[in-house]
């Protein structure tokens, strides 16, 4: 059975099903209750699960720190950070506590917290509502970070994250929340963390993307005069290097696409892994198509900042002609 729903509804479905399955799952955050979240991802859940859904005061450090404590008390906290850019207000709780509790306690205490946060540009949002700093989370040992690109994965990855015994950041691409209705399995649907998906197979070039950039990449590949293999990374940390390496060994060429700034972005990490394990298969240098090293512009300039299908297509053409 499958239903045609949008990404934001798939998120809601996963929360609904997981709260029904496990009453230790607690959904909380700013405006997630009565208001159903500013993107309506938690719409009506407070009525269905009055003991499991809570509005909190406006305090991200509290929201993330509470999760560590709730976990200690035997709950599975699923806080929402209203926009990823405000995770910094509680970043210390993630870096200093949530991510390393298991390690510090030699495995006796874990933090099975799943932090949902909308991220990324393309919706004409206010300043500081469009950043994608997945590399920052990926840089923290002990944190897992997933970025779904479509409704089915949104449901499956979120479900897996909630069931995961360790802290997981789920970055939800705001521009995809309502972009399309797609088929999503009804009932239990789990997409394992740490596994990339080959979205379309090809022989000439590998294109790696995640989150909002997957749709742009698919569009670019349709227009490009190339037999491209598209990989949706899905989990950016821990990263499925094997999927990328296997593809690059086959195609010999690679383009990595991300919306985040170029310097220190995850494309650099991917290039390093290819260097380590597939360098001699390469027929041209790996190409990066990314955001620029500038603060994410306000929306009058955001289209110029974000990689789009055109820029990605040119990246593909460049590696092919090199």
């Amino acid at each position, binding site marked *: 059975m499958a239903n045609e729903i949008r990404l934001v509804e798939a998120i809601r479905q996963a929360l609904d099903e997981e709260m029904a399955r496990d009453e230790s799952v607690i959904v909380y955050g*700013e*405006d997630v*209750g*009565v*208001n*159903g979240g*500013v993107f309506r991802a938690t719409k009506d859940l407070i009525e269905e699960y009055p003991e499991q859904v809570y*509005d909190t*005061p*406006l*305090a*991200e*450090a*509290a929201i993330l720190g509470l999760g560590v404590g709730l976990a200690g008390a035997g709950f599975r906290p699923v806080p929402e950070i209203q926009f990823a*850019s*405000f995770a*910094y*207000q509680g970043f210390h709780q993630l870096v200093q506590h949530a991510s390393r509790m298991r390690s510090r306690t030699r495995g006796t205490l874990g933090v099975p917290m799943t932090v949902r946060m909308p991220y990324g540009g393309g919706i*004409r*949002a*206010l*300043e*500081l*509502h469009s950043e994608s700093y997945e590399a920052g989370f990926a840089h923290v040992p002990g944190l897992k970070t997933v970025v779904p690109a479509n409704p089915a994965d949104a449901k499956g990855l979120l479900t897996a994250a909630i069931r995961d015994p360790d802290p997981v950041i789920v970055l939800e691409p705001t521009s995809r929340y309502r972009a399309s209705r797609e088929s999503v399995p009804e009932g239990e649907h789990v997409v394992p963390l740490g596994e990339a998906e080959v979205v379309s197979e090809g022989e000439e070039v590998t294109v790696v993307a995640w989150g909002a950039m997957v749709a742009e990449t698919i569009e670019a590949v349709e227009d490009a005069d190339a037999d491209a293999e598209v990989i949706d990374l899905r989990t950016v940390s821990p990263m499925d290097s094997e999927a990328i390496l296997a593809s690059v060994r086959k195609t010999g060429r690679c383009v990595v696409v991300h919306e985040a700034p*170029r*310097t220190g972005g995850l494309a650099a990490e991917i290039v390093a892994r290819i260097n380590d394990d597939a360098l001699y298969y*390469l027929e*041209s*240098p790996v*190409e990066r*198509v990314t955001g*620029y*090293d*500038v*603060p994410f*512009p*306000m*929306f*009058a*300039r*955001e*289209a*110029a*900042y974000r990689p789009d299908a*055109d*820029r990605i297509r*040119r*990246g593909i*053409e*460049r590696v092919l*002609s*090199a």
Partner: protein
Amino acid sequence: MVREQVAEFSVEYVQALDEEGTLDDEQAPDVDDEDLLELYRLMRLARRTDERAVALQRRGESGTYAPGIGQEAAQVGSAFALARDDWMVPSFRESAAYLTRGAPVHRLLWYAMGMEEGAEVADRNMPPSIPVGSQALHAAGLGWGQAIRRDETATLTYFGDGATSQGDVYEAMNVSGVLDAHTVFFCQNNQWAISVPRERQSRAETLAQKAISAGIEGIQVDGNDVLGVLGVARDALESARNGNPVLVEALTYRQSMHTTSDDPRVYRSEDDEGDWDARDPIVRFERYLRDEGVLDDDRAAEIADDIEALLSDEIDRARGGREEVEPAEMFDHVFAETPPELRRQKEAFEREESEEGETGPASAEDGLRGEREAGGAEIPESVEKQRDGTADEQRDEDDEVDDRG
């Protein structure tokens, strides 16, 4: 065992002009008729600016906007108390305060239109803080600087009731107390933080009492009473100039949506919203001005006409500016001097822009590669100095990357 009371606190509430428009002379600030009319004009201008900005957003001409309808007295009254040399550290709902400080309407509209041009700092106003509450610390720093220099100036920062739940706001008040900072914390308690009502933000009876734990003064004022706010803000600024920071809680009400992307019907009923005729800050003040003979129909109409004329000019100007947005400017102000890699990114971007539509490999990042082959871009002297000669290494690295192709 000893058990005795060691401290006792209370919080005062101030109102000068009541709902009927009657003035309590004891609480009234010293203002002449000219000031009274200016306060009135500014409140009306702010209201109309918000209404026009919301309409522009609805027509797709601008982005998300946070109107301050209902909060004009709190903002205009407090900003009016600031001297030119004082600093203002606002959040995202402070159009009325910016206007009172002389900011032109088209700037506010540019910001709403998604243009960095709208956030330019002018006349000792910080750009609006989008993260809730974190700006209070900047006000603490500014106020500390004023204390170190023994300046006669002060700093006033705005935030909402929701912001008082943030650690940063408490830290700001606490450090200001310890450092004798010249800072006034002005909380507009408009009863809602998006969907969360004031009572769900804190169990404290007043927000003003949050000052007590920081050891600074806290006071409440009727935030819909422009004269009460002006008086309290003047006193608070005076106290801050002497190294005694103050938290002012202005009790007001957000009459419209949180922002243009918000639908308040989801979380509050019309009953909650109540009858605004009695509580509206502009209605109340206008009644008083008419009773006092400061304002009559002709004068009111004249002010309204001037505001409409000003707004239509400013909206034209905002639209004109929007037509001229240069995307490549996003690279220009990241650093005072653009580092080489960022300059390369800009040049690549410009090349890509100019070749947009043309197909084939001759595009942006290709140009970037060509430049690397030529030995890298020139590096500004000062950067080279700062880097202590490492700029050349950087160039070699770039070449290396390219050699593999």
